[in-house]
């Protein structure tokens, strides 16, 4: 089963870039433009890697972040944060890219984390 990635990003352009490139590299992609439906997708499909842009609606909501954390722990999924995480946030800050970021390192990290999960 191919590794999967969930991209939560309000920018249609960013999603298009990732979708195009990750698809070429054999990964399955789920997309959401705001965090609430992103969380629903995560619960349904259990992606190996979740990319979360903090500018997405509700992405900085305390309760949502808690629920997302639970989902990550439950499925042992990896999280990549785009933006600056507030101190005290329940989300793991292991992989964070400040904006504006370059796509090459992001794609590289996604592939690495997806491979690890496999």
């Amino acid at each position, binding site marked *: 089963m191919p590794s999967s990635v969930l991209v939560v990003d309000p920018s249609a352009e960013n999603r298009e870039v990732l979708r195009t490139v990750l698809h*070429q590299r054999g990964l399955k992609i789920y997309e959401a433009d705001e965090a609430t439906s992103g969380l629903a997708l995560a619960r349904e499909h259990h992606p190996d890697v979740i990319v979360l842009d903090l500018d997405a609606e509700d992405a900085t909501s305390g309760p949502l972040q808690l629920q997302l954390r639970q989902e990550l722990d439950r499925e042992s999924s990896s999280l990549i944060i785009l933006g600056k995480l507030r101190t005290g946030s329940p989300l793991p800050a292991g992989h964070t890219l400040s904006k*504006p970021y370059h796509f090459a390192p992001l794609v590289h990290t996604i592939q690495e984390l997806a491979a690890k999960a496999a």
Partner: protein
Amino acid sequence: MASLFVMQGRDRGKRFELPAELTLGRDGSNLIQLNDSEASRQHARVRKEEAGYLLTDLSSSNGSFVNNEPVKERLLKTGDRVLLGRSLMLFTDTQEHSSQNLAHEVDIVGELHTTGSRILKSVSQDQSEVFRAPDSADSPWLARARSNLQIMYRTALAVSHTLDIDQLLHRIMELIFEWVEADRGLIMLSSHETGELEPAVSRNRKGTKPDEKLSVSRTILDYVLQHKEGVLTSDAKDDERWDPANSILKLGVREAICVPMQGRYGIVGVIYIDTYTAPGKLPLRTPNKFTEEHLKLMVAIGHQAALAVEDTSYYSAMVHAERLAAMGQTIATLSHHIKNILQGIRGGSYLIEEGLKGSDQDVIRRGWRIVEKNQERISSLVLDMLTFSKDREPELIAADLNETVSDVVELMQIRAAEAVVELAWQPLANLPMFTFDPELLHRAILNVVTNAIDACEKQDGAEVAVSIEYALGDRTVRIVVSDNGAGIAPDDIKKIFSVFESRKGARGTGLGLPVSQKILREHGGDILVESTLGVGSKFVLELPALAAEDSKVGKTIAS
């Protein structure tokens, strides 16, 4: 620069700088449009003539009044209170005041006796309760002065809102000369940096020669500042005054009043006035021209002037602080938008790179499209910033409004198609040519249509309808843009025209609508918004219907 400042009425607080000619009234075609149901549509005209600004009533229903007198025509002077309908305005024209470097005109002299003056009386602020109601013990002069002081207070306050200390001080000086028979007057302000008193405004009564340098005794100034009291001085020696054979008759007498300008927070400066009585012209009954009553009045004036100056400085500081804050906010929001655009360009470039690596034309094309879109965004942002920051006079030419709107709709078709929004437009038949700036108006309409498309982007059956409303004889022509998007909450309606308040998810820069509003207002029009949450919004761009023949600019007619 002459101006009208609205002191009372719905438009209170507004200040209008006056061009050579303008009309005032309820209608949008007036340069000064009054939100006043008791003002006529075309109420009055003000025109600059050689002698000054002339106010003419244009057969208004309720009439025009200057200083409570009904007028058909009146030459306005600074301080006049103009009443149109319910709107009371203060007229000021400071052209007679050229800024002067007073440093060489004023001497602060060391010793008191150098000027030969001594303090006759001193009065502190509490002793000078000039604001209390006049009573029978007051001389008629003082009674009148007390009631005038009320007006002065209000006037000074009104002027203080203009943020110009210089104008305010000139006005105060004028008022002083109106009430007190002084020959010379001087207002000195404490410098913010050094704390030293510096001359700000001086005045000589017409007819007196400003030959002598104005000498103000340092001792007197120190006394006034230290004791916070106003003083009345004279250079006549007491015993000499009644002796006809003495030197006074040969030299005359100079009397002076020096009062502190004491505000809420401290001493703002001092006001000095003096009068000179030539030999042989001593007033018969009183030994002095300046009496204790004058002193009391001046102390009260000093206090009011200080309050007004403080208001001005405070205002300036507050406005400055607000502007800084707005700038800070602006820069923060700007950098947010620019960051997003940069991100877009990085994404597109990355796809192009990947596409080139794998020789994949489709990927290259996708990447390029993203880069192009973001170029367009940066360009839009820069254009809007420029339009917003410049105070541009519209270049008025006769133009076809149908054409201008058509151009916008054509441009927006692609964007509408991408957003899956239906863009409907019907030109208005038999629309006459109007006078406006087609380039600016194009921008204004474009921003509103862009906003409408963005508003209903994700909706099913999303539709934006553009139309023109005009009937022969209308004073305005209206461009209407309606959408069936999410609508705008009543509290937010004001915000959408404020700079850089970009709502979440909006692709725009937040500058679009403020720019459109600015452009319409520069034309003498405005933008009106009606919106219902969950139903949609209607933006009406109101443009004064200046027919092509009315155009005073007389430029070439657009083909």
